[in-house]
């Protein structure tokens, strides 16, 4: 094995490979940072170029774009409250408050460091754990997937902010909107127009919900908010801050690796999952959502951790987990390589070259991220009155460019108004989003399980994986109820004393 590795190192360490990766990462970071432009788009646009590149170089380019864009999303999430990609939505929760408090640079640095660590851990697992993780992922059938989604929905309790009830209301709205369009059997729901038949796009909903309310708020309450530019305070990330978040970074990376390896889950769910875990276990848990560096670290380590891991089912089984790895599968096939167990027999040289090349991505990500984030930080100096209209224009163009669909733009604007109404009513937006992301997976897998068992509920309790997630769900719900109960009692005990 080591001999092959050394040989692979020699074959991968060429200037064109490094150039392709560096260009890919940097391009990915910039595209990811632009609201509305996603990693999927970057990878799809780059696909035709890879027809002319050697196989390893072209896959490295696509992987680099994916990784770059996953980090890049955090830049706009932190600085302008507009997640560039869905996987950065969770970074907004603590990143933007930090930027408002003048610690934007610090948050960006934390995001970069945790992204790189997550990326590195994920690459290492791709290297050593591809086969076992892929086997585990295959065993996750519809019932197990359903239980995992049920557990993931308990995240709502962690990201609801002050009121759990408002959080649950928000999540229910998200679940409701997720049902718009075609269901898995091909019947239509809420298909009020031809466009609604294909459902609401993820990116327009996401950006509408997070970015636009800020703009509407500025127009409606003109003088109340300060419209000055944000101050740029201390930008350096101190060693003690890093050490304080290290546990969350490592845990986030591992969550990312495991969830990323299961086809269909993806980096955004991993980010929310890790955030929820970090909040539950951190001693600063109560401060999450108000600008806690650890929250940024948890979210960013998990989404980049998932990134490399999505390659596991692709390479080991030939099963792409999301659209981006789907495009990569296409790129493999174009070059006559078929991902799957045979790849490791027939093209071991290429596989090792790919693994070695991917290992370098963490380093490139750090350099490209550092340079880009530095430039983007200056955005914070632009006065809000100038910046927000620019963001609106970028969002509208970005959304339109995804599918040249005016309907997506309508969804963006309507969701902006909905988001503003929610802001006024103090309803948190994050539970809405996570429910919107998880809703279809939750529903589809429930219906799939029941189709397989022909209506027998016993199907959900047939494997230890299902039981495990079921137990975790029950435990988490009980803990949440106990916490709420304590809060309620404290309040009740506090009220009479203050009255007397």
């Amino acid at each position: 094995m080591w001999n092959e590795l050394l040989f692979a190192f020699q074959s991968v360490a060429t200037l064109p490979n490094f150039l392709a990766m560096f260009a890919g990462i940097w391009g990915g970071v910039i595209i990811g940072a632009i609201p509305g432009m996603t990693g999927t788009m970057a990878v799809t646009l780059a696909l035709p170029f890879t027809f002319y590149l050697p196989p390893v170089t072209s896959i490295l380019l696509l992987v680099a774009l994916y990784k770059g864009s996953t980090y890049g999303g955090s830049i706009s999430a932190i600085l302008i409250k507009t997640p560039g990609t869905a996987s950065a939505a969770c970074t907004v929760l603590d990143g933007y408050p930090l930027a408002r408090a003048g610690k934007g640079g610090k948050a960006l640095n934390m995001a970069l460091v945790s992204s790189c660590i997550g990326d590195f851990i994920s690459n290492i697992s791709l290297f050593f754990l591809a086969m076992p993780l892929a086997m585990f992922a295959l065993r996750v059938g519809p019932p197990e997937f359903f239980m995992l989604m049920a557990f993931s929905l308990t995240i709502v309790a962690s990201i609801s902010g002050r009121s759990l009830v408002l959080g649950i209301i928000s999540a229910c709205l998200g679940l409701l909107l997720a049902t718009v369009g075609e269901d898995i059997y091909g019947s239509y729901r809420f298909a009020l127009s031809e466009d609604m038949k294909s459902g609401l796009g993820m990116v327009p909903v996401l950006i509408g919900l997070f970015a636009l309310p800020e703009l509407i708020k500025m127009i409606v309450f003109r003088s109340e908010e300060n419209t000055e530019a944000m101050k740029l305070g201390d930008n350096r990330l101190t060693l003690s801050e890093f050490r304080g978040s290290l546990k969350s970074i490592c845990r986030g990376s591992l969550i990312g690796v495991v969830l990323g390896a299961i086809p269909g889950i993806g980096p955004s769910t991993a980010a929310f999952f890790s955030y929820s875990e970090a909040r539950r276990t951190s001693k600063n848990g109560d401060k999450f959502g108000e600008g806690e560096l650890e929250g940024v670290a948890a979210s960013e380590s998990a989404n980049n951790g998932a990134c490399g891991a999505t390659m596991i089912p692709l390479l080991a089984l030939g099963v792409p987990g999301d659209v981006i790895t789907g495009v990569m599968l296409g790129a493999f096939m174009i070059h006559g390589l078929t991902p799957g167990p045979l790849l490791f027999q027939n093209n071991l040289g290429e596989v090792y070259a790919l693994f070695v090349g991917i290992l370098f991505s963490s380093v490139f990500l750090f350099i490209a991220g550092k340079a880009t984030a530095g430039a983007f930080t200056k955005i914070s100096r632009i006065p809000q009155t100038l910046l927000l209209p620019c963001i609106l224009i970028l969002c509208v163009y970005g959304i339109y460019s995804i599918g040249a669909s005016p309907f997506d733009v309508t969804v963006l604007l309507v969701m902006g108004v909905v988001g503003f109404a929610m802001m006024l009513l103090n309803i948190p937006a994050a539970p809405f989003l996570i429910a919107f992301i998880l809703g279809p997976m939750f529903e589809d897998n429930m219906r799939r399980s029941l189709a397989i068992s022909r209506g027998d509920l016993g199907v959900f309790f047939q494997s230890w994986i299902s039981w495990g997630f079921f137990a975790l769900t029950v435990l988490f719900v009980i803990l949440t109820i106990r916490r709420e109960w304590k809060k309620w009692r404290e309040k009740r005990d506090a009220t009479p004393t203050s009255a007397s």
Partner: protein
Amino acid sequence: MFRQLKKAAGLAAAILATTTMISTAQADAYPEKAITLVAPYGAGGASDLAARALAETARNYTDGKPVVVVNKTGNGGMNGARFVSESKADGYTLLLSRVGMALYPAVYTDSPVGWDAYTFLGMLESTPMILAVNANSDVKTIDDLLTKIKDSDGATTYAASGPTAIDGFSVQALLSDVDLDPLTASTLVPYKGGSALAAALLGGHVDFLAIAAGSLMPHIEAGKMRALMVYSPKRMDALPDVPTAKELGYTQAGQVGGWSGLYGPKGLPDDVVAKWTEVLGNVATDAQWLDLAKKRGSVSIIGDEDPSAFVKSQFELYNGMAKQFGYIQ
């Protein structure tokens, strides 16, 4: 300090411009600018790969004007189809059509686009489908499978994109051919996309499936799945021992299969049609096109079929089955 933003806006505008270029000028020598080719399904799928392969090959014969692939997905491919059929008939917006463009109107009477709402420029490729089981299954032949289905009283499961999708029809046509109830003899478990379907069989979550060869070949070659039957006019080169539905005497299943074609909006000018006939004639023998087709498991059929007669027969096949199975009255 605005440089980054400006760069971003420029990029956004450039992409926008390439995707929505619609000219008002009358073309004297078509093509005089970039041609948009709409792929109605997601990136990385069969339609997307076919579109990109065609775009890459055709650009050598379109007088240096590029063919730009745009994915317009959703609603079973009908979003992209509707976009093209409602575009200006100037030859700058074309559709990489799939079997779904004939299947959807055959199954939904309220389809947003009819099967014939286009100018048919040509058929491109046929993509065989394979009926497969997990390699660990006790089912060794197609007869074993049919016996198992009969004995199980509806408890066997198969994965498909939906009851009225092509990979649902592939199984239902077979069941109907052997006088089983196509809707209840075996239970359909819906999944989205070829790779999710393949993973369901690989993980042993369903008993069998019949989907596009491209999604299954790697697993069959790796020994993880067993091919029982092929839906294609003749046996596949890669699977010389696996019989086709036709030779086993399954009349309806024998006609089911995937394909790609090139469509434009209805009423394309004659010079555009003539140009594309010439371009496709060149593409048909182009080594790159044939090579890319082989790599994704499909067979080039450019020039083999009269497009409108072929699409009409496909529409009638699925329309007949939809009526017989009770999807429409």
